[in-house]
C-alpha cells in the first residue's frame, strides 16, 4: 500500500527541482517502490547518477548516494561494485548521459555483466540545458538544436544494450507505473547487469515544442506508442513504425562479473600469477 516515504526519501530536501508534470518523479517513485517490494536493505544499497535532470534523483533518496560527472555514473558504480560486491548498486541516468556522453560505459558494463541495475530516465531530450536533442529524440521532433526537426536517426537503447551482450533488459514508461515498478523489481532481483529503459516525459522542453501541451498529453503519447513485448514480434515493420515494445525484452542469465572475478582471485592465489 502507501510507500513509507520517510524511509526512502530525504523528505527534508523536498519539494524537488523538477518541473511540474515531469516524469522523473514518477520513475523515482517506481524505483523506491520496487526497492520496498524487493526488500533491499537501504544501508546496503548505493544509488549513483551522472549529470542531467534525472541525475538529481539520488539527492532525494535516503541511501548512500553519489552524483558524479556527465556520462560517468556507470564506471563510478563499477568501481563501487568491484570494491564491495555485497552492495546493491543502482545507477540512475538520463538518455543524454547514458546514450551520448556515456554510451561507451553503458555497452561495456553490459558486456562485462557487472551487477548493476541501470535505470535510464529516457525523456528523449536534454532537459537540464533546456531542450537540445539527444540520441533518443525521435526523427522529426523539435528541439532547441533541431529547430527544423530532428534530422539524425535515434538509438533504440534496449537494442544497443542487447547488442553489447546485456543479459537482462526491460522497458516501460511513466504511464505504465505498475508495470514499470515490476520491471525495475525484476531488474533488481537479477544478479548480473540489468537495464531498464524507463520512458519519461519532459513537458517543459519536449512537450511544449512538440504539440504535447500538458503532462497528460505526454503520458498518453507514451501509452499510445507502447506495445507489449509479447505482441511486438508478430507486428509488421509498418505496424512497428513509431512504436516500441515494453516488458522484459531479454532475460538470459549469465554469471555476474564480481563472481567471475572471485574465481580469478582463487586462481591467482593458487598459481601465484603467470607474469
Amino acid at each position: 500500500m502507501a510507500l513509507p516515504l520517510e524511509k526512502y526519501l530525504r523528505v527534508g530536501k523536498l519539494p524537488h527541482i523538477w518541473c511540474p508534470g515531469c516524469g522523473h518523479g514518477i520513475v523515482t517513485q517506481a524505483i523506491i517502490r520496487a526497492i520496498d517490494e524487493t526488500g533491499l536493505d537501504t544501508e546496503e544499497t548505493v544509488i549513483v547518477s551522472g549529470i542531467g535532470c534525472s541525475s538529481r534523483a539520488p539527492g532525494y533518496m535516503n541511501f548512500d548516494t553519489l552524483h558524479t560527472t556527465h556520462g560517468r555514473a556507470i564506471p563510478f558504480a563499477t568501481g563501487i561494485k568491484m570494491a564491495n560486491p555485497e552492495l546493491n548498486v543502482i545507477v540512475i541516468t538520463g538518455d543524454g548521459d547514458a546514450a551520448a556522453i556515456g554510451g561507451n560505459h553503458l555497452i561495456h558494463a553490459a558486456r562485462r555483466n557487472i551487477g548493476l541495475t541501470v535505470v535510464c530516465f529516457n525523456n528523449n531530450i536534454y532537459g537540464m540545458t533546456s531542450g537540445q536533442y539527444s540520441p533518443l529524440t525521435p526523427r522529426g521532433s523539435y528541439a532547441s538544436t533541431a529547430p527544423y526537426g530532428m534530422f539524425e536517426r535515434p538509438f533504440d537503447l534496449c537494442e544497443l544494450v542487447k547488442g553489447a551482450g546485456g543479459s537482462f533488459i526491460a522497458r516501460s514508461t511513466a504511464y505504465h507505473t505498475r508495470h514499470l515498478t515490476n520491471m525495475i523489481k525484476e531488474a533488481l532481483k537479477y544478479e548480473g547487469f540489468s537495464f531498464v529503459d524507463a520512458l519519461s516525459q519532459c513537458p517543459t522542453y519536449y512537450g511544449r515544442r512538440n504539440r504535447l501541451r500538458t503532462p497528460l498529453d505526454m503520458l498518453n503519447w507514451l501509452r499510445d506508442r507502447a506495445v507489449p513485448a509479447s505482441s511486438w514480434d508478430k507486428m509488421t515493420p509498418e505496424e512497428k513504425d513509431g512504436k516500441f515494445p515494453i516488458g522484459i525484452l531479454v532475460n538470459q542469465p549469465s554469471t555476474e562479473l564480481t563472481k567471475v572475478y572471485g574465481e580469478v582471485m582463487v586462481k591467482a592465489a593458487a598459481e601465484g600469477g603467470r607474469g
Partner: protein
Amino acid sequence: MNGSKPKLLQGNEACVEGAIAAGLKFFAGYPITPSTEIAELCAARLPQVGGKFLQMEDEIASMAAICGASLAGRKSMTATSGPGFSLKQENIGFAVEAEIPCVVVDVQRVGPSTGMPTSAAQGDVMQARWGTHGDHEIVVLSPSSVLEAYTLTVTAFNIAEELRTPVILLMDEMVGHLREKVVLPEKSELVVRDRAKPDLPPGQYKPYADYGDPAKIAPLAAFGEGYKYHVTGLTHGEDGFPTNNPQAGATQIKRINDKITYRKKDLPQAEELFTDDAEVFVFSFGGTARSAKKAVRDARAAGLKAGLIRPVTIWPFLEEPLLKAKAKKPKAVIVPEMNLGQIVRPVKRVIGDTCPVVGLNKLGGQYIEPDEILEAVKEAILRGSAS
C-alpha cells in the same frame, strides 16, 4: 618482495609493489605507453593479495572507477601517460571537489597529443597542477629512482588518505622504464596510514564538516556502512548536499585548498646536495635529476661550487629550499627539464632578479646528459665571475 636481498626492478614495477605495500585494493586502468607495465603487474598481483583489477573501456572510466572503489572504502589507484592524463582530468577534479582519496600515476612521455609514445619527457608539470578546471590545490610527487618509485607510492597513498584528496605520482618514462637493483624496505619499516573513520553516529555525521581549522579533515565513511550520505561534484555544504549560497560555496572551495597548503610542510621535501656553499644551484626533478646529481658531483670534483636541489614534491611548489639558495646570492640557478620550460616558471618567481635563472631544455625524448648540465654550471660560474 621485501627484505634485504637486492632485486632488479623496473620503476613501474616498483610503483606497483609500493602501492600493494600501502594497501592498494583496486586498480582500474587503460593500456598506454609508457605506463602499461603498471596495469599489467596490477592485473597479476592484486588478485593474489585480495585486491581487484579491472581494465576499463577508457581512461575516463578508469578514473571514475577508482573514485567509486575509494568511496566503497578501498585504497585505489590508476596509471596513465599524457594523453590519458588529459582524459582523466575532469574526474580528477571530481575527486578534488568530493574529497576522494586516490592515487593517479602519470608516466610522462613526449607530447602534445600522441607525441612520441615511447620517449621520455617532463611536459606534464603544468597539466598535473592545472589540468582540471577551477581553483584547487593538488599534491604532485616525482620520484627519480626505482626505490623512490616504491617509497613515494606509499607516501602518495598516505597523503591521499590523510588529506582526502587525489595525489598525482608524476613519473617519467626514464624512471618508469629504468631497471635498478634495489633493496625494498621491510614492511615493518614502512609507515602506512589508513583512512580515519567517523566517530559520530550516522545522523550526526557530516562528510564535509568544516571545523574552521585546516588541520582537521572530516573522516570519510565508506558506502555500505550505514551513513547514507551524499557525494556530489556540485559545490556543497558540510552535509554534502549542493548549495547555491555564495558564502557557503566560497567557504567550501577555500577549505579544500587550505587543507593542502596547510600541510605543505609535512609533504616530502627537497633532496639537497652540496647546497651549503654552492655558488650555482641546479634545480631538477624526476629522471632528469639523476643527470643533475652526476653533474653536480662532477663539478665538485673539478673544484666548482655547484649544488643540487631536487624537489620531491613538485606541487604545491616548495619555495623554502630556493629561498635559502636565494639568500646565498648565487651566480645562477640552472633548471634542466625535458620540456620547453615549465618548473622553471615558479623557480623564476621565487628567485626574482637575484640571479639568472637558466633553463636547460631538451625535447624530442632525449635525456639531458650530465655533461650538458656540467657545461651550464661552468658557464654560469664563468659569467658570474666576469660580472
